């Protein structure tokens, strides 16, 4: 089985959908000739031509709108927003148009757009190149929100997103493009080549939207998370010697409550974790739903591990990033409660 890092896996996904369906077009800032600032679209313009893989000016609002217009006419555009932090000029188009055209045309038009965008910190990007803005998009009825944590899922989820008739906002945690990251900043870089999820077939396959994965089975405690923190949680659980069950949501909306509830009802203890700020983060939604469905199974208050309610700092990046220490401390607190 060939191994791929996350960029190569995403590239392979786009290669597969471009090859299978002439209605797929890919565009974005630097996405054509240059092949993407992180290289995700490298080689695709050369292979599929200027009509199908092309550069857009630096206009996020119009990029999103172009994709919507094209999708309403039957195409399946994949638009790249270079950094998730740049998406806000296009936010109105997502909120007011992309998510609602199906509803307000009573199903006459659908908008199967996929917006790919790298998110998250850990690369010293500072406040405008490190955000995890997924929670904003979970508050918009009519779009799906996806965030993979490894190359295998990245390819399968991206293909599923492009093939879905619903619009999808596809967040790519850029810290783990080149290898899994356990949250220890000075640890030597590990490669996806040695990780089981770095094995990525060349051909078409999908990972279903809306299905979480239990990446570590356990009995004492449930950790619900997604993206980079999946790896931090796994490593921290090993270090703490706690038999945690770790759930990688993969799709944030619609989220897989069935898998979460089954785990919580078994363990009775839960931590939800994300890199984004705490207040009104997606963890708050998860906790609300967990207490609604699993209240009588809970042995301890549900805890949250998150970024702080501050802009993403440049200088103290690792004080902001929810690393192993915060995980281990919180796991102990929840176990002792």
């Amino acid at each position, binding site marked *: 089985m060939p191994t791929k890092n996350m960029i190569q896996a995403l590239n392979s996904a786009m290669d597969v959908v471009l090859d299978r369906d002439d209605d797929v077009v890919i565009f974005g800032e630097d996405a054509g000739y240059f092949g993407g600032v992180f290289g995700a679209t490298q080689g695709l313009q050369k292979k599929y031509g200027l009509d199908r893989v092309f550069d857009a000016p630096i*206009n996020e609002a119009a990029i999103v*709108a172009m994709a*919507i217009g094209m999708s309403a006419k039957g195409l399946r555009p994949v638009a790249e927003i270079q950094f998730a932090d740049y998406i806000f000029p296009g936010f109105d*188009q997502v909120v007011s148009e992309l998510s609602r055209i199906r509803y*307000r045309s009573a199903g006459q038009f659908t908008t199967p757009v996929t917006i790919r965008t790298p998110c998250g910190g850990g690369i010293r990007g500072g406040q405008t190149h490190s955000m995890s803005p997924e929670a904003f998009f979970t508050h918009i009825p009519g779009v799906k929100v996806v965030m993979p944590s490894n190359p295998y899922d990245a390819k399968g989820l991206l293909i599923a997103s492009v093939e879905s008739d619903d619009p999808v906002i596809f967040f790519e945690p850029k810290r783990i493009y080149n290898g899994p990251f356990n949250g220890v900043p000075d640890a030597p870089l590990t490669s996806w080549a040695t990780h089981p999820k770095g094995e990525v077939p060349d051909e078409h396959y999908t990972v279903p939207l809306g299905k979480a994965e239990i990446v570590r089975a356990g009995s004492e405690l449930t950790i619900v998370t997604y993206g980079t923190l999946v790896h931090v949680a796994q490593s921290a659980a090993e270090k703490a010697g706690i038999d945690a069950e770790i759930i990688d949501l993969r799709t944030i909306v619609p989220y897989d409550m069935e898998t979460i509830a089954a785990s919580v009802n078994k363990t009775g203890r839960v931590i939800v974790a994300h890199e984004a700020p705490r207040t009104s983060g997606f963890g708050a939604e998860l906790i609300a739903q967990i207490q609604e469905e699993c209240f009588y199974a809970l042995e301890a208050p549900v805890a949250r591990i998150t970024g702080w309610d501050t802009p993403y700092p440049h200088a103290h990046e690792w004080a902001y990033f929810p690393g192993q220490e915060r995980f281990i401390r919180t796991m102990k607190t929840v176990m002792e409660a």
Partner: protein
Amino acid sequence: MRRFEEKAGQLYGMGLIAGFCHLYIGQEAVVTGIQAALEEGDQVITGYRDHAHMLACGMSANGVMAELTGREGGYSRGKGGSMHMFSRDKQFFGGHGIVGAQVSLGTGLALADQYKGNKKVCATYFGDGAANQGQVYESFNMAKLWNLPVIYVIENNQYAMGTAVKRASSEVELYKRGISFGIPGEQVDGMDVLAVKAAADKAVKHAREGNGPYILEMKTYRYRGHSMSDPAKYRTRDEVNEVREHRDPIDLVKKLIMDAEYASEDDLKEIEKRVKAVVNESAEFAKNSPEPDPSELYTDVLIEA
């Protein structure tokens, strides 16, 4: 169109239409002239003052009126209302309540046409207010960069809600807004349907032949307030009356027809009668069509939830 809008105004007064309702009365020559220059399969997208555009696209008066009253028989089964209607059949892509958002969407529709190589054109309508939105210029840039088959129709009715063009625009000659992108523009008397048609023919030909976008600034005027709740205190009654009396687009057409003896007074009365019948029927239909089932609240959100 005018009789339809008058009837919509009445139904609003009677409480049968709720919320927002932006009437097009006074501006009819614009959409009539532009649509006459389009061919089947060309598409149309506009903002929130959209009822006449739908009628001009050939959508049924019944379906539009029933959407205004929020009934099941409406084009969006009551989910959209005045500003939010679509017709796949008539290639009408809304009906958009966010000022200026439709300009970029229309440009995207044109990009799809170019990709498909179908020689279709997208008529993208917006007002003098929307002309100041940033994404309009993002769209102009892309449209010319890629030579997209789109015509931008700026319906300059002089007021963005209550703000006169000169109070909000540094350059009030809106047809010049494409100059720095290399997009040709023209100012047209939007009260004269023949002038509109002639300009539209030229613009549509330009776009259809692969020469890229074209801007038409239509100088027009709306007689009613911005919406039903607007008493229009930002302009004088005299100003409105002056336009009504001397520049009314429908009176002009009537005069042209009579002068050239295309039809007699009686013929026109007969047409008027037929129009009234269609409009009255639409009002009856809109009153009697049932409200949508509450279960419709959750349909058409996500396909696979």
